């Protein structure tokens, strides 16, 4: 387990670069739009309607956003539950990305809530409605965000030299890690269950009933791994560090297996529900269905041989496609395949898009700042500082 020697180190370096500046500007634009939204209401900035009460602020920022933030969850599952210690160097960076992804996904809910000042009702006995899927999702995500901050706190404690606290936390950390595996399993599946109550309002291609949670959970784990590959590759390039292909190649083998499982369930479900025919009609739904499927099937080919898995480029593309596939599955379920009657249309408005883009920018910016200042990424020998 030589990798254990690669203890995380802060990267150092200047915080003000053209990239961070651009990200900062994008985040600021989103801030201004949000200010406007809180003063003039959701209608003033979004294209939401009663036919499409949920737009990209839910479908992307929360549903896709949290799934893309599953890197920490997937890696914890692999390293601590399936005891694959060799992936350990990937855990902390993945956890950091998850921490931000989730915290922002959680916070962005506020932007979308019409009566946001009542949000505490979800957690309040008397108001809380435990039969609601959204109740489960909201409570579970909130606790998970807390758990992740605790899981990640060793990095902060280390930075501030609080060795004693760090040691104490280390003794009980296993419990938070277990919680950190349980909670995403619950809410990532429930994000799929949100669609169950829509019944016939969901196009047959995505109306998978009780399999929805299974499909959403498997793809969330897949997405978690894909994001780890994606981020590891990007930060290798961005921070000029050696590629981590040696760790990533075996990881992609696991992804391959999981992907096969997902596709088998997805296709069998369509066949048994008699919904497959809908995929062969001339409709937008069918078109986007095939885009979604292509994004899942292509990585299968890209990761099929050991040689392909050792190619950083192929792996990167496969990861990117998987992220796109997970994105499509969710956008298709929540927006493309949502049919609530004639005459309703939705495409996000420019301000709506800018808020989502600004959120992503903010997330990347925060990630860059933290890895430069705190021990997150595994050190390279000799340490580049």
């Amino acid at each position, binding site marked *: 387990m030589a990798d254990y020697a690669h203890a995380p180190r802060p990267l150092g370096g200047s915080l003000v670069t053209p990239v961070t500046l651009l990200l900062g500007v994008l985040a600021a634009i989103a801030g201004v739009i949000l200010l406007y939204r809180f003063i003039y209401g959701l209608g003033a900035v979004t294209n939401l309607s009663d036919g499409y009460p949920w737009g990209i602020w839910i479908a992307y920022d929360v549903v896709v956003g949290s799934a893309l933030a599953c890197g920490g969850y997937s890696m914890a599952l692999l390293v601590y539950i399936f005891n694959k210690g060799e992936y350990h160097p990937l855990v902390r960076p993945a956890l950091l990305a998850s921490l931000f992804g989730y915290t922002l996904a959680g916070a962005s809910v506020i932007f979308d809530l*019409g009566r946001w000042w009542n949000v505490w009702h979800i957690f309040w006995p008397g108001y809380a409605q435990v039969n609601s899927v959204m109740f489960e999702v909201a409570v579970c995500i909130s606790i998970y965000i807390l758990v992740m901050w605790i899981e990640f706190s060793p990095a902060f404690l280390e930075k501030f030299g609080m060795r004693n606290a760090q040691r104490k936390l280390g003794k009980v950390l296993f419990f938070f890690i277990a919680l950190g595996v349980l909670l995403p399993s619950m809410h990532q599946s429930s994000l799929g269950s949100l669609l169950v109550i829509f019944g016939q309002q969901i196009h047959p291609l995505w109306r998978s009933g009780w399999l929805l949670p299974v499909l959403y959970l498997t793809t969330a784990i897949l997405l978690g791994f894909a994001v780890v590959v994606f981020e590891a590759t990007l930060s290798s390039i961005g921070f000029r560090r050696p590629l981590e292909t040696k760790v990533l190649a075996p990881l992609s083998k696991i992804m391959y297996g999981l992907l096969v499982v997902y596709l088998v369930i997805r296709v069998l479900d369509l066949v048994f529900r008699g919904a497959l025919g809908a995929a062969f009609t001339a409709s937008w739904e069918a078109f986007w269905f095939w885009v979604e499927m292509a994004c899942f099937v292509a990585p299968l080919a890209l990761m099929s041989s050991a040689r392909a898995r050792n190619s950083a480029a192929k792996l990167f593309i496969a990861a990117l496609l998987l992220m796109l596939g997970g994105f499509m599955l969710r956008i298709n379920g929540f927006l493309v395949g949502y049919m609530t009657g004639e005459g309703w249309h939705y495409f996000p408005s420019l301000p709506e898009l800018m808020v989502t883009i600004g959120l992503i920018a903010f997330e990347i910016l925060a990630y860059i700042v933290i890895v430069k200042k705190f021990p997150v990424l595994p050190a390279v020998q000799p340490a580049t500082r």
Partner: protein
Amino acid sequence: MDRRTFFKSSLAGGAALAVGAASCPAQARGTNTLPPEALGLLFDSTLCVGCKACVAACKEVNGMPVENFTKDAYWDTPLDLSGKTLNVIKVYRDGDMAAKDREENGFAFIKKSCMHCVDPSCVSACPVSAMRKDAKTGIVTYDKDACIGCRYCVAACPFGVPRFTYDSATPQISKCQLCVHRHKDGKYAACAEVCPTGATLYGTVADIRKEIARRRALKPGEQTSFPRGKLGGKDQSYPGVAAKYIDHVYGETEFGGTQMMMLSGVSFQKLGYSNLPPNSDAASSETLQHTLYGGLIAPIVVLGALTFIAKRNVKPDNEEGGNHG
């Protein structure tokens, strides 16, 4: 780590999940049934003359603003339910519209407002109990002081009933509440009270069912009488001629039934009401949730197993200088 250890821990992980899945008793929840003193509406499309008195009355008693869609904004002309409109009368038209209540070359009127479902999706969806179904009357109410404005109810309702005021900084859901606020004054739903033909009737669901059975038993063209206002209330009936109904009472079985029920001479699909299964989506959704999370049994069992495994696999911190693995 060697293969064997990996294999063993994989098995343990799998077993934990399996135990979790098996330990939770399947808490299937059937579609709910009608409350004992259920109240509702009967809308008979064949009696509706499209005067929209009910639309105006609804606006007045609920203090809802007018909506103008015509060029010169002379009067309230809502086209559909909206944040400003809780009840609307729509028209179906085909061909030259020569006869009322005929599908081909005909026309018909239809009411759109909350169906007060027996097993409502909006109530099951709402995370903060802002949507409630009264245990006795079955009326589905909305409480804006509880609502967080998530619009899950808007998305979930199969009839597209709850609407939202997107143009407000303090938005809320708009939806018919069967005029519960007028009950304390001994009054009932304004739409039924003002309907000149009795096309919209208010009453207990039991009385409504009886009235529906009576009308369906009549021969088309037969002389009969039609009540107005409230079934079982002051007698305001008037003589009329029995209509020809299609063999479908909307709201009898749809979605586990609804407390607003409808009769018509034209198929309901043409009138904008889709065919719905007899079991409610709320039941499917809650069965799924209860199976996974009922009594938190499964999550706790799984957490126990995960904690056990993680305790073995997570090494104490100080070994590797701050690495928590």
